[in-house]
């Protein structure tokens, strides 16, 4: 491997979270984006066929992750444990926030048909959502959006990886903003 690839490999090994391209670039100010991407591709290729870990593009960054087929064995040996599953209520709330962000609590409540305050608090606590801004409406409500941790726990690279609403079997598009109506 090239020296830059080795450097990135070491950094990615040491990090406990995905490292973004900007973060990786800080390792070697002389390296351009192209060189970094080439180095990442080189690492990925080197690990691809015959290693227990692989370089994964996730949450707008890169991270070494174990291959899926070993999950059960590793977990059985208690070397690592899978994170707890999110409850249906938490996933519902996350789905609404992911697609409607920035979105306030009232809208989440309205779509779910139940009070979502406690779920939102829990998601905030877990760092899966954050306050993005305040709304214009009465009382300037807090508006929430998803965080990089949200992408990380879903294994997504960015929000574009979420299914597009048109792809869902239930066709209901987001109501078009007023100015787009004819």
């Amino acid at each position, binding site marked *: 491997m090239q020296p830059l690839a080795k450097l990135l490999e070491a950094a990615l090994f040491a990090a*406990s979270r995905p490292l973004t391209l900007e973060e990786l670039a800080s390792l070697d100010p002389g390296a351009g984006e192209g060189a970094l991407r080439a180095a990442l591709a080189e690492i990925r290729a080197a690990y691809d066929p015959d290693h227990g870990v692989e370089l994964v593009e996730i949450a707008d960054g890169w*991270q070494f992750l174990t291959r899926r087929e070993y999950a059960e064995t590793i977990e059985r040996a208690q070397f690592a444990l899978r994170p707890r*599953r999110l409850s249906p209520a938490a996933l519902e709330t996350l789905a609404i926030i992911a697609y409607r962000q920035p979105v306030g609590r009232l809208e989440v409540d309205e779509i779910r048909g139940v009070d979502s305050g406690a779920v939102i608090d829990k998601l905030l606590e877990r760092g899966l959502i954050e306050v993005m801004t305040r709304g214009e409406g009465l009382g300037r409500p807090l508006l929430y959006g998803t965080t990089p941790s949200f992408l990380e726990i879903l294994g997504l690279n960015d929000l574009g990886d979420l299914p597009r609403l048109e792809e869902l079997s239930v066709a209901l598009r987001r109501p078009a903003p007023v100015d787009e109506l004819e």
Partner: protein
Amino acid sequence: MTSPILRDPGGGGFVVELEKFSGPLDLLLHLIHEDEVDITDLPIAKIADQFLSVISDLGLNQAADYLEMAARLLRIKAQMLLPRRLGDDEWEDPRAELVRRLLEYQQIRELVDWLGHAADVRSERFGRGYEAPPPDAPPAPLQIDLNDLLAAAERVIALIPEPMLHRVVPRPLDVEGATARINALLAEREQFGWSDVVGHGATIVDVLSAFIALLELAKRSSVTLSQPEPFGPMVITRATPREAA
């Protein structure tokens, strides 16, 4: 309140299958799917009745969110029953808003499935820095310095509140009083017994006071103490020097 997590404050108690439905819309969708009816042409009367019966069976009829939905269903049912003129273009389907919400919610449920699956797949890959919570390790061997232990014990003892029970305040001996009483007796009589000094029902403090007073007077040679027989009563006699004085 996220899901129908309900507690009856009265303690009568009803347990809801917590995760079964995440809200009234979820329950409604469940009923619609079960009946395989067209969501856009909802048989509102039938669904409303089913909804009411389910929430009363599950004890959900005490949850505001479910109650609100029940009321909404009944209102729509009533609106549907109102007669309307044939070919009335102005008529708006009272179900429209509910259908829109149901479709929207159904879409969210589909996304939930997708997100849940994505999270499951992701959770099968472990990152480098991930540390599993340690198993319940045996407690570390106890290492403690004797001085530390004593200091700790002192701190603990200092914290113990002093028990307030049975706190006895000793009455001080009244030697002066006893001396005055004996002197009064001496002024009256030349000789008298121990029982005359202490009298009946004397407390131990009185006895001690009198005894110390007698010893003191004897030391000053004001009286002479004598005991005619072993274990006999003590006899107090006015001393001669006093007579001389």
